[in-house]
């Protein structure tokens, strides 16, 4: 564990009956940084946030915030939520329907006994920052979803907590508003300097907001690291599939000389492909493997009728229009791959030549990695 981490979670486990929602997780977040928790529905993201906020009592582990132990199973420490001095934005916003906008936002100040003048001043300032200055006396239920989300945000920030937890705060916003709020959040964080833990299942959101991205699966951490690393070199087939890469099964033909070196994989009857090993250990020939390729890294070119393909050849099964790009389903000897390319007018039934560069292919040993 890093001593200077602002948030430190060690060996956190939370069960609901038989079900292990969070399984022995350890995480650190440096002060002022943002950590994004990414993963499919039900993988335990919200549960981690709730454990951090003290809304759920973990079954074991240790949590400290800003150097203070707030939970320790062995030492029987479990501070109450209000003692942890943080802010939280719930998935449901949880804006109080019986209070006005300013009462909602001022609540953290009220329970801390802040004097009237300072209270008004702070509420006005934070409402201006989130762009709700004109709405302060409106009832909270008269607001639109996007405005409620801003109220929740303002409420989480008004007392300037050093840690703010976000649970999919933008899941109910439309794409445009989402982009806008994401930018505002970035600016706010730069201004106020809080540490943030941000739960989402939207990759783009995670990558654009966070210094560190953690991908979770079934209550465990699959991978964590800076967004670029996580994005460019998926560490496990699960992460590859979660990020939308093609993942297909094959058999190793030729092993690598060194860890991470080039290998050759066979699919179907005669299809061969070269790629880089994604595992640390050495792979042996004949082992079942999974090959991961990004959709954008599969090149396809239309074959003139009767032409002899130089490399791999396949057939377009389906095409769908995405705007600037088009997505194709290409069949290569029974293996189906998805490819995204600038629109080139290919249609189902067209024969194409397929090219994949070895450095774009990541090969994992199958079986040892959980896939789903």
């Amino acid at each position, binding site marked *: 564990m890093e001593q200077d981490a602002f948030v430190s979670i060690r060996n956190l486990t939370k069960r609901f009956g038989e079900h292990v929602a969070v399984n022995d997780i350890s995480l650190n977040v440096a002060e002022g940084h943002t950590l994004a928790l990414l993963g499919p529905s039900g993988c335990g993201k919200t549960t981690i946030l709730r454990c951090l906020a003290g*809304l759920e009592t973990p079954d074991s582990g240790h949590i400290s915030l800003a150097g203070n132990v707030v939970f320790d199973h062995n030492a029987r420490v479990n501070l*109450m*939520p209000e003692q942890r001095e943080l802010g939280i934005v719930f998935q449901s916003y*949880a804006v109080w329907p019986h209070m006005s906008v300013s009462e909602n936002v001022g609540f*953290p100040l009220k329970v801390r006994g802040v004097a009237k003048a300072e209270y008004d001043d*702070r509420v006005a300032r934070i409402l201006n920052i989130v762009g709700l200055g004109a709405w302060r006396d409106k009832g909270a239920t008269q607001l639109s979803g996007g405005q409620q989300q801003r109220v929740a945000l303002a409420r989480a920030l008004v*007392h300037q907590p050093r840690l703010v*937890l976000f649970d999919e705060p933008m899941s109910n916003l439309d794409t445009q508003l989402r982009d806008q709020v994401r930018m505002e959040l970035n600016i706010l964080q730069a201004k106020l300097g809080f540490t943030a833990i941000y739960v989402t299942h939207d990759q783009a959101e995670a990558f654009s907001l966070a210094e560190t991205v953690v991908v979770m699966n079934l209550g465990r951490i699959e991978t964590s690291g800076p967004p670029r690393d996580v994005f460019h070199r998926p560490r496990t087939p699960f992460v590859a599939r979660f990020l939308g890469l093609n993942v297909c099964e094959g058999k190793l033909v030729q092993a690598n000389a060194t860890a991470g070196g080039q290998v050759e994989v066979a699919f179907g009857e005669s299809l061969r492909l070269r790629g880089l090993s994604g595992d640390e250990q050495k792979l042996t020939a004949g082992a079942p493997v999974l090959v991961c390729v990004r959709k954008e890294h599969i090149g396809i070119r239309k074959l003139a009728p009767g032409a002899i393909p130089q490399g791999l050849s396949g057939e377009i099964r389906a095409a769908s229009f995405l705007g600037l790009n088009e997505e194709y389903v290409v069949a290569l000897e029974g293996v189906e791959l998805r490819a995204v390319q600038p629109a080139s007018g290919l249609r189902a039934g067209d024969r194409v030549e397929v090219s994949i560069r070895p450095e774009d292919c990541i090969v994992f040993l199958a079986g040892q990695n959980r896939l789903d």
Partner: protein
Amino acid sequence: MQESTAVRRDPMTAATARAQSRVGRFAEVGLPASGVLIGVLLVLGPFLATVIRSLLYWDRDQVSLSLQNFVGLFGDPRFYQAVGNTVICGAGATICSCLLGFSLAWIVSRTDLPGRRWFEIFNLVPFFLSPYVGAVSWIYLAAPHSGVLSRLLNQYLGLPDDFIRIYSLGGVIWVLSLFYTPYVYLFVIAPMRQMDAALEDAARVHGASFWYTLRRITIPLLTPALLSSALIVFVTSAGLFDVPLALAAPKGIRTMPTEIFQLVQYPSDLGRAASFGVVVMIVTVLFTILQRRYIDRRRFETVTGKGYRPRLVQLRRGGRFAAWMLEFVYLGSGVVLPLIALFMVSFSRLWTGRLDPSVLTTHNFEYVLFGFKLTQTAILNSVYLAIVGATIGVALAVLQGYYLNRGSRRRRALVDSLLSLPLGIPGIILGLGFLIIAIRTPLYSTLAIILIAYIARFFPFATRTVSSMLLAINPELEQSARASGASWLQTMRYILLPLLMPAIIAAWLLLFVIFIRELGATILLYGQGTETISVALVILSEHSAATMTALAVVQLILLLGAFMLFRLTRASLLQA
């Protein structure tokens, strides 16, 4: 936000923080748990007392533990008569009020009957009235010779004078049905409103007639609500003391509640009464469990609303006439006629069965309010019991509702079923339990024991009201208050209680109404100086019709006042 600093509480040492967190958790867990504990004691106390007392048998001065009380009970033909009559009353009232309640709910919620908004409000009025006063009013209306209606029928239609036999099981069923119809009505009107119109439309489009659709689609979809209200109406109407006391007892017709009342009167046989009570408790608890099981099993089959408003059926001339007739008959017999009878008697100097405008007087009211010690005491006692009891009951309900919806999941189901045990238990049985507890103690015939019995018998209504609303409040509303720095108590005060206020008001008014008119439990527990309005009505019924009806009108005003508040605060009875 330039230089501004964070707002934090004064820093404390880790040790203080931990100590504080232990204390805080104690309030968070301890307060709701104590509400539950009090509830459980209130339920189990009279239960155990009755069971134990039923097993004690006094033979001259020798007390022994034996089943002799039960042997005596089961060997007595009067027991079987009473049980048989009670089952007949309960079943009759259930069938009638289901038919009436379903039809009225359907008319109000699914047809375009002109005036349905008014009917919607007035159909609920009997829910707020006192069944005892209702039964007595029906005596004034339909008693042979003296009843107003009997007389009119005799005079204009030449029907025999005892054409309406009000002193009979039929009379009991009739009055019970009038009072229990709103229960069924309330139970079925919500699902009827929420029912997805597409379910019925689909049947019509595929070729079903209106009646076929009603029979095969609408009614089956509403069966869960109808059946569970039927079970409740059966248990509660069969156990009601008020109506048989007025209409069956005078002619010597035995029913369960009046038999138990008799057994407690001098020369009392508490052992026999307790063993009767145990039998009733077992049957009621079985029914309650049956109803809960049934609801649990059908929970996912309830009719989910997709936001489609069910289309209103356009009534033709005949249909409209029939619907109006039904409303007029129901509101006439349940509200208008009894009230007219009550007012006629209470404003007459001496009731002879004929309204004589020359002897109209307000003297009876002056006497009841300012001149008569018994009625004055009774009014004060009732108001005191209702206000204090409703307040305590609602406080318990909030704590219990919190425990059941927010507390630890373990034991929740058990606690829930324990706490809802009193729901079906007849008031007179619970009164008996508390009588057994209080007898030969300073509590005997005090207001305190009556208050405790009221709360014990009726807090589950409040708990259910509060609980169903709590279920609809997203816990994240409270959690974000905690995360914002509010303690548990502050969260209760600023977030949860304000959000719960509609349910709290509804539950308070409901308890207030129930307590103002309660009779079954009070009749066994009151003493001199602790009479309530209902008890005073029973006492006066043997002496003075004029004084009695005047007091009944006073009670009516209190009850209707609560009804008006209900409408004003827009508290929803459906939550109850």
